[in-house]
């Protein structure tokens, strides 16, 4: 496949074309195949340095990026806020300049502030990969969710996806909606108005405040975590009331299409966003998402460091 990817950074999915998104997905497919082999390591990034700068805490994304870089034979350094000078009040700008002075080739950043990845990319020659910036985007999560749907259904065109939950604070929702709509899926966002303002309709998706009305048409239901720590502005009466109105329980599951696919970016609050039985059930893709995350992150690391297109569309 010829290379349509010419970016040094991955900052958001909003700025990617359908061709660029497809290139990541087909490249990820190749890496997924490699991950199925007995020897899972390839030399693509040998001699390169990947810095995981996780200013906001994360477990699965950080481990996933570390492992992806290791599988590509890169040298990997990870630092978080507590182990870096950011703790001592060093600015992000100065931290970035120091990393550049150490000749880090790729910087993976997770940060509480929207735009932090843009901030770094405009100041550094190094490649910058956004691993989640505030409520803005989480591009590799959007890509891995899209990859997972494509893998199961063999297509994205016309696929009906519900994204349910705390949309306003969710970078996962934003990255998902851009990738899915650019590739032809039909996205409906569902949640209470306090977590899902009407303006999201201007982003090319439907907005619904009634999960029960949407269940019957959905091919995929992606349930987002209700982030207790961000419910600072009295946006919900209680988590229990949320679960009653928007939780995917067994009764609601009965009214879904047979074969509906269930996703969750984790960490899951069992019994809140999704019934425990469903999270572990046959329709759940939750662990496939984690596995695919590794392949997708390998693809992204590979492409931003100048790798040629792999695989067939």
């Amino acid at each position, binding site marked *: 496949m010829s290379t349509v990817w010419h970016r040094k950074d991955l900052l958001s999915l909003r700025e990617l074309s359908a061709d660029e998104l497809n290139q990541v997905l087909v490249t990820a497919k190749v890496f997924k195949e490699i991950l199925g082999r007995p020897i899972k390591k390839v030399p693509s990034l040998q001699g390169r340095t990947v810095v995981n700068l996780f200013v906001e805490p994360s477990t699965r994304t950080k481990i996933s990026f570390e492992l992806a870089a290791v599988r590509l034979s890169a040298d990997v350094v990870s630092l978080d806020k507590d182990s870096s000078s950011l703790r001592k009040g060093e600015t992000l700008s100065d931290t970035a300049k120091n990393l550049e002075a150490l000749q880090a080739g790729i910087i993976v950043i997770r940060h509480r*502030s929207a*735009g932090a990845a*843009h901030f770094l990319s405009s100041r550094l020659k190094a490649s910058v990969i956004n691993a989640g910036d505030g409520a*803005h*985007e989480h591009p590799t999560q959007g890509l891995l969710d899209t990859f997972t749907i494509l893998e199961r259904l063999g297509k994205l065109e016309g696929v009906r996806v519900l994204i349910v939950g705390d949309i306003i604070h969710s970078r996962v929702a934003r990255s998902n909606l851009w990738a899915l709509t650019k590739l032809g899926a039909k996205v409906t966002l569902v949640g209470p108005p306090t977590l899902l*303002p009407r303006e999201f309709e201007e982003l090319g998706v439907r907005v619904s405040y009634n999960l029960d009305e949407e269940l019957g048409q959905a091919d995929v239901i992606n349930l987002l975590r209700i982030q207790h720590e961000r419910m600072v502005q009295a946006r919900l009466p209680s988590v229990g009331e949320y679960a009653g109105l928007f939780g995917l329980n067994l009764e609601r599951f009965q009214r879904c299409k047979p074969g509906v696919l269930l996703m969750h970016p984790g960490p899951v609050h069992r019994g809140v966003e999704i019934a425990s039985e469903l999270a572990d059930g046959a329709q759940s893709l939750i662990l496939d998402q984690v596995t695919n995350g590794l392949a997708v992150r390998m693809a992204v690391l590979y492409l931003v460091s100048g790798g040629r297109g792999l695989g067939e569309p």
Partner: protein
Amino acid sequence: MSEILLQGGRILDPGSKRDAPGDLLIRDGKIAGGKPSKDAVVVKVDGLVVTPGLIDPHVHLREPGQSAKETIATGTAAAVAGGFTSVIAMPNTVPVADGPSTIAWMRQRAKETGVANVFPTGAISVGQKGEALAPIGALRQAGVVGITDDGHCIQSAELMRRALEYARMFDLPVLDHCEDRTLSAGGVMNEGKWSRILGLPGWPGIAEEVIVARNALLAELTGARVVCQHLSSAGSVRILRESRARGVRIDGEASPHHLCLTEELVEGYDTDFKMNPPLRTAADVKAIREAVKDGTLRFLATDHAPHCSYEKEVEFDEAPFGIVGLETALGVYLTELVHQDRVPLGEVVAKMTHIPSDYFGLGRGLLKEGSPADVTVIDPERKWTVKKAEFRSKSRNTPFEGRELKGRAVFTIVGGEIRHDLDGRASKK
């Protein structure tokens, strides 16, 4: 005796209803009549417009306490470079200007180091904390031209009511930065489509409108004079228009950026587009421009808010609010209002001269014989490009970098002293 003769310009003095070709003579710091002496400095201003010195009713000079951002010396140097001969200074200095000694210090400092007239305001509440009234009577005696907790809107409706009642006793203007903090809480850009895309917390127009409505009701109740500062939303000017039609003594400011910039400029997370209130939508911009044209908004104000580069070079949500404006404001007003919207030049000049002077009692804004010789010479057709590296302000935080503007102040006189001479006219023979 020192004399300057501005020769051959168009004298535009809206407060005196004068708009005609002519010469303007300045003698010993005053506008003068009669003939110039042979020693007069003759400055040729053919093809240019001679106006009363411009007045900016809303600037942050940062002194005392934050002189890394700006000082009275650099802030007033920026003012005269932008054509402003007088500025009204906000009290959010360190310490807050909430007592007569700080005001006295600022006035003394301005006398010693300033190149434009500085009219201080005092705080409404002690420490701008919104809890207890500042010594408003003493502030007035110390010479403030208004009171404001700018940047820290008074949240308590009761305290605002008492401040208005008290200020009414002196007919002292009360200036309010209109922001209901329960509604704007944590917001760093306009709430709307673009805050949704960018994942930044929204500061909705309604947070401004609620306070404008409150202020209108309290102004009506108390009879006090209120200025709603740097209005940004269509709803705010609608409320203002309705209240003014009923005779309520409420006014509003329009700022250069809210006249022509919109929320999508935040797309690149550039903190030079972060100010409070934030940039809003095209519909809001249109409403603000309409309100300037129909007289609902009588004041044009920069909200000049300098910040150091290192303070602005941080994550968007961490950056301080505010942009500089003194050196670009006139160019923006002329470009947007006069050239684009065909507002008569005299109307724009009126809003920048005798209207604020009369309102705040500054005793300026006219070119009458005997008036203080504060004069601005404007080239309304002059095309130029904003280059922040050339600013005389200490700070560079402008959203207008690289923008092509039409119209500029080329010559500024404050109290008979030449303070800005862009083309070196005073030394030309």
